[in-house]
């Protein structure tokens, strides 16, 4: 099939429809709004439903209901809206309901700005809502990945009965890039034998996360954690770029991962053995990427659009056996390739030519 030119947010919306998403509940917020707009225009034509909720709290809880009823459902927002959704996300995780949530990260905290930022890394990967839960967090870095990972998000959600978060930023959401609209491949997914859609011909079912007996509550917690362990083992994803023989590594996801690729190529031209690990799953964090590349590595620089959040996971992954530094831009600013390379030269005492 031929390629089409779409905005990043439209790409996500198109992929959702082709993944069989039948319902979307949302509330507009820049820079994610094109998702609800695109779906409002196209989803009802195929018999789907788009409802503009009264607020994000309502939207995520509508998703809760639709998922409980067995439907494929999505919501999308940006940072302050995602904060409002945290209550619902915690309940989705507790009730093991498959919902796809898109966060086109704004700068933050507070109302923030619209430029590209990765300041919601902690919120996305470490909870955000209350309780000991995990989301599967996917971090695309280009249009084709926005498309492919959105489609896959629905399957992962159904496979593990878990909410999946697609985390991108205003740069990815707003840019236009050609994308190939692939058809959905049939996955062998478990039957939804838990959904509450009316008890015809079977015993009543209930979906709830309220435990009055501590013993039962602990049993529930253990079950969730066992599932999370299984996901950690099976779903770590990353892209390795010139990492096999690297002496120094960049680690960056999303927009930073994209910029870091050019940095690596420039460094290689100068004879510096720089490589890149680009995490594609932020949770589970691709720890395996570091164990497999570890031996020759002398130092790591994480490139982040925040004050240094992913760096904590990188340090844990390498168990403090190599120095890990941070190159950060914030507030919607993007780093220049040249700046990153200069920083690499500085912290590792490498000769880097000026205009790399």
């Amino acid at each position, binding site marked *: 099939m031929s390629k089409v030119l779409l905005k990043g947010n439209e790409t996500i919306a198109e992929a959702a429809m082709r993944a069989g998403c*039948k*319902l979307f*509940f949302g509330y507009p917020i820049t820079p994610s709004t094109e998702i609800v707009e695109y779906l409002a225009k196209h989803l009802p034509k195929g018999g789907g*439903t788009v*409802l503009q*909720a*009264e*607020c994000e*709290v*309502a*939207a995520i*809880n*509508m*998703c*809760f*209901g*639709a*998922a*409980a*009823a*067995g*439907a494929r*459902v999505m919501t999308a927002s940006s940072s302050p809206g995602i904060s409002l959704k945290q*209550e*619902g996300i915690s*309940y989705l995780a507790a*009730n093991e309901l498959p919902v796809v949530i898109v966060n086109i990260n704004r700068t933050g905290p507070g109302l923030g700005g619209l430029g590209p930022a990765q300041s919601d890394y902690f919120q996305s990967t470490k909870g955000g809502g209350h309780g000991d839960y995990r989301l599967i967090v996917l971090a695309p870095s280009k249009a084709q990945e926005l498309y492919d990972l959105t489609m896959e998000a629905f399957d992962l959600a159904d496979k593990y009965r878990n909410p999946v978060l697609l985390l991108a930023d205003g740069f990815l959401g707003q840019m236009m890039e050609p994308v190939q609209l692939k058809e959905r491949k049939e996955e062998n997914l478990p039957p939804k034998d838990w959904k*509450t*859609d*009316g*008890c*015809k*011909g079977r015993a*009543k*079912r*209930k*979906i*709830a*996360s*309220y435990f009055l007996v501590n013993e039962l509550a602990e049993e529930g917690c253990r079950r969730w954690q066992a599932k999370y362990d299984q996901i950690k083992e099976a779903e770590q994803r990353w892209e390795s770029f010139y990492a096999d023989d690297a002496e120094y590594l960049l680690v960056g996801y999303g927009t930073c991962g994209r910029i870091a690729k050019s940095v690596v190529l420039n460094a290689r031209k100068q004879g510096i053995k720089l490589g890149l690990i680009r995490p594609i799953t932020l949770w589970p964090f691709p720890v395996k990427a570091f164990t497999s590349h570890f031996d020759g590595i002398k130092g790591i620089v994480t490139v982040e659009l925040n004050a240094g959040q992913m760096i904590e996971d990188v340090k844990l992954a390498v168990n403090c056996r190599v120095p890990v530094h941070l190159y950060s831009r914030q507030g919607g600013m993007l780093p220049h390739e040249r700046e990153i390379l200069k920083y690499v030269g500085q912290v590792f005492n490498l000769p880097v030519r000026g205009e790399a």
Partner: protein
Amino acid sequence: MQKVFGRPKGLTEIPFHYCPGCTHGIIHRLIGEVLEELNIIEDTIGVAPVGCAGFSLDFFSCDFVGAAHGRAQAVATGIKRALPDRIVFTYQGDGDIAAIGTSHAIHVAARGEKITSIMVNNAIYGMTGGQMAPTTLTGQVTTTSPYGRDNAVAGFPIDLPKTIATFDGAVYVASVSVDSPKHILQAKKAIKKAFQVQQAGLGFTLVSILSTCPTNWGMSPVDSLKWLREKMIPVYQMGEIKVSEEVKGL
């Protein structure tokens, strides 16, 4: 021997664990009877709130979902939009629907969401131990209004059904009570009507039911019924508050 009275099929066998004399049990029974009489048990999905009413999850024999505090109507919206041919109802306390969930209460009514909400108004927060609710009467003593609800500080009681009735999407709104056999029969009629209106797909329906909380009111069950009758009924507009033209034609 002929059986003349039994548990309606709309209820499970699980014994209620509401406090003695609490009228949640009566309201459950009425809904259970309506589900059976309309033969909709297998087509119905209930949504439970947080609060004493949250126990309803176990007691009805239809599928049930437990929502976060105040979110039952948003969850019900999601279920109904996914499964438009099913019957979806929420069973909520007054704190749930008229405090933390107010925005959803207003917007399901404005949208004419084809669901039924049962609001159980006991003028207090039951489960958390008797704090002030938006429905607490002026002067009523609760743990967070220990000197009696002072309107200058805490505002005035909210009569939610009256507000909801002003929205075009709300087609049937009733306020009933379960303090006496006569009122119980009226309550049942209102509940049944609300479900029938939903079956006909006409719009949003709300039945508010005045209920007792002997435990947190600090009264005997009998005195509670008397207090409800003498103090609450005069404050809240009772009866069928709104019956739209389509509903009249039903």
